[in-house]
Each structure stands twice: as C-alpha cells, then as structure tokens.
C-alpha cells in the first residue's frame, strides 16, 4: 500500500496537524487487523461500510471508512518529523495484502524510543 498524494492540510484546535491522504488501494479489514498491533483501533461498523479510528499514542491518529482509498491523519506536532515516516512505513509494510511484521516491529521500536526521548526526555 502506498500514498499517492496528500491534501487538505490544516492545524486543529488541539494543536495537531491534519492531512488527508489519497491511497493507491482501499483500506480493508485485513489492513486494520495489521495496524492494530501498533495502536488502538475503534470501529463503528454500522455506519456506511464502517467508520474506523486508529490511535497510535503520542504519534498520530487515522480515521476513515472501510473500503475507501483515502483517510485522514492527525499528527502530534512535536514528533511529526519522525511519525510521518512511520506512517509511510506502515503502509509500505503491507504490500498486496501481506503484512511484514518483522520490519515494522523494528521500525516501531526505534520510533517509540525517539518519540519518548523527544516528549519525555531520557526517562523510560
């Protein structure tokens, strides 16, 4: 999966930075099953084809509808320089319906270490 382009950028009331991403393929239940290993996932399945919201604590949140080839991401501003890369990795590690947990686990570990250091100093 990959991002084709982004649009509708804006700063939100809570200070986060919102971007809408256009994807090369639709978001499937299998993709959500994959990303929920890296954050929390909430779903309202009865709305349309299913509204979902993924939250990667301290990093970003994603909201969208199942089977749509776009979603909206809100980046926490303080760590956006790291986390936007991770978003791209998260999609890259899900190619043709095949999840690459090994690569993404490694990147997730590195990311969270940097995020913790940025947000909380060197405290673990």
């Amino acid at each position, binding site marked *: 999966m990959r991002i084709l382009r982004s649009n509708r950028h804006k700063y*939100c*009331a809570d200070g986060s930075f919102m971007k809408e991403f256009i994807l090369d393929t639709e978001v499937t239940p299998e993709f959500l099953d994959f990303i929920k290993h890296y954050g929390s996932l909430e779903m*309202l399945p*009865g*709305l*349309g*084809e299913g*509204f979902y*919201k993924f939250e990667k604590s301290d990093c970003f949140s994603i*909201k*969208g*509808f199942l089977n*749509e080839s776009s979603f*909206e991401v809100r980046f926490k501003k303080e760590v956006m320089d790291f986390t936007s890369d991770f978003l791209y990795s998260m999609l890259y590690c899900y190619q043709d319906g095949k999840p690459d947990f090994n690569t993404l686990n490694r990147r997730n570990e590195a990311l969270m270490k940097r995020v913790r250091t940025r947000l909380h100093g060197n405290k673990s």
Partner: protein
Amino acid sequence: MLKKENPLIYLNNAATSWPKPPGVIQAVQESLELPFGGGRGTGKAQRDYLTEGRETVAQFFGEESPDTIVFSSNATDALNTLIHGFTASSPEKFHVITTTLEHNSVLRPLHHLEKKGRIELDHISFSNAKVNPEAIIEAVTDKTRLVVMNHGSNVLGSVQDIRAVGEYLHDKDIFFIVDGSQTAGHIPLDLSAIEFDAFVFTGHKALFGMPGIGGFCIRNPDPVLPVRMGGTGTDSGSLDQPGGLPERYEIGTHNYPGIASLIAGITFLQSIGMDALQRRADRQTELFIKELSSEPGITIYNPDPELPIIAFNIPGLDNDDVGYILARKDNIVVRTGLHCAPLLHKEIDDGAGCVRISPSWFTTDEECRIAADAIKEIAHHAYSQI
C-alpha cells in the same frame, strides 16, 4: 456504501452562508464589469457603491445616519480597529469587561492588550447561554472604560440583552462595543433604540454578502484613534490621516464587489422580510432540537436557541469524528471544534469542543430531516458501542 452521491447539505451558515442569493452573485459580477469608481474620470458609467452601501446598511439596521457606517474587511478587522483604536487614545492602563461567550475576534485583541499591560480584563460568565446584564454592571469599577460583548453567541445561538447593558453604560464614561456578527440578518435590528458606541457586523454570514466585507456603526469616533493610516482619496495634500468619518478608518481601495454583494444581500433579506426569515429559522431550529432530543446518545448544549444554531455532542465520539462521518458518509457540512470561542467551550464541554449545526434561508425542511436522521444514526451506533 458511502453516500457520496447525495446532494450537499450545508449547515455551516454561522461561519459563512452558502449558497448566496442569485442577486448577490449577479451584483458582484456587475460591479467588476463597471469601471473603477474612484475619482471623476469614469463619470456616469460608475455606480456609487459606497454611498449606496452606507445607506442600505444604515436603513436595514435602523440607524439614522449613514455617515456612521464604516466598512472593513470583516468583523474581526472591525473589532481590531475599534479595540486597538480605543486603547491608543488612553494613555493610562484601564479596566475592560468582556464575556466568556466571545469569539477570538474579541478575546485575542483583548488578551494581547492585557499581556502588554495596557488593560485589566474581566470575563463575565454566562448561565443558560445568557450573560446577566447585572453581572456586567456589578463588574464595573471606577477604572472601567470599555465593555465589549457579542449580541448573539456563535455557538449557543443566544441573544444577549445589549439594550439593558447599553442603557447603564450610556450615563458612564464607558465605551460600549457590540459584536453583531451573528445577529445581523437573523433578527430585526433597530439600532436607534439601543445605546451603544460601536456596533460591528460582518457581510458574509446572514447578510448573504461575500467574504471580505464587514464594518461597524460608530456614533462617537472621538475615543477611537485610527490605528492604520493611508490613502483615502480626500484631503490628499495633508500627511495627517483625515479625522472625519469614514476616512478616519477606511483606508486604501474599497472592496467594491464586497459592498455590492452586501447591498444585494440586504436587498434579498428585505424582499423576503425578517418575519418570514425568522419563522423559517425558528421552525428548522425546533425541528433539529426535537429530533436530536429524541435520541438518548446526543447531548444538546442549547435546547432553546434564539438564532438558528444548534450545538451538540455525541458522548463516546470525538466531535471531529462526527463531523468527518457526516461529511464523508452523508455529504453534510457542519462545523466542529471550538468555533473560535475557547472560553465558552471550557464552560460547556471542558474545552473539548462540539458539533454546530447552522441552517440558513436556503436550507429546506427536508434537508434538516435528512441531517437530523444522519446524526441520530451516528449517535445510535456510538451509543450501542458504550
């Protein structure tokens, strides 16, 4: 299946009205087709939009003299001109009263002046969406020189008793600025019956003009110094800013298309009549309140609004998520978040923000029913997850 093919239902008119009446669009086009109105060179080919605009606004607001009408870019621009201009004329620190219902167009200029040490600031709270005039009167001290408050809340749709406040302040040496951004065009105004020093309006909301035009009516300009200087097309031999109205505050080339749109917007309102406008707004507001109240998963913050504004949340869902679902699934446009009124939201929802619906004359009853059903459906699903 997403219902993207559904026609757009626009319920964000408290931000900017849409669609505009056909006459407004035509008026803007005509204004751009005519030669520029400044100077004498274009003679009879031009139209005197400035005079016509002042007369139209003054007549619509029940203000006796069109000479008191000053045009600005929008209400925020007008409020900055008034607040900073008033402060500039006061060499000593003074006390200002405002309310927690205000928009950032009032709060931010005042907060800036407070931080600079130019003013002491008191925010009067509200109850049931209303500021008690007595609370403002009680807050007045011997150092109070300015009161700034809105006439209508942009979140709770309540109309404040500016007449009572104005009557009290009239006999004091206290300048009274009223922000009428949300009431102008929604309720009949008779400014001649209200004591105030400056009344601010914006053109692009219920007056149906285009963005970029607003203004204020000012009765006593002496305490409000001009804070921006420049060309006025008058008294050009002098390097001093002219002191009379409107040149004291209107600098640079006017927004002729904006003024043309404002004239056409007000003419449209007059053709319908304020009674008919209010009847439809009241009916549609009641429809929303009744429908949303019937769903247990919806919290309404203003069950009895006087303006067509409904503020609500769906517990368990972020207000932005509700707006997102309505936009993407149902093609319904609402406004979410803080609505530039952070102090108000601290009081009603701990600063989390809410969803705001605001129909206009062009919203049909059927659109209101479709939107209410869509909101109830979201609430129903959210509620069943809790």
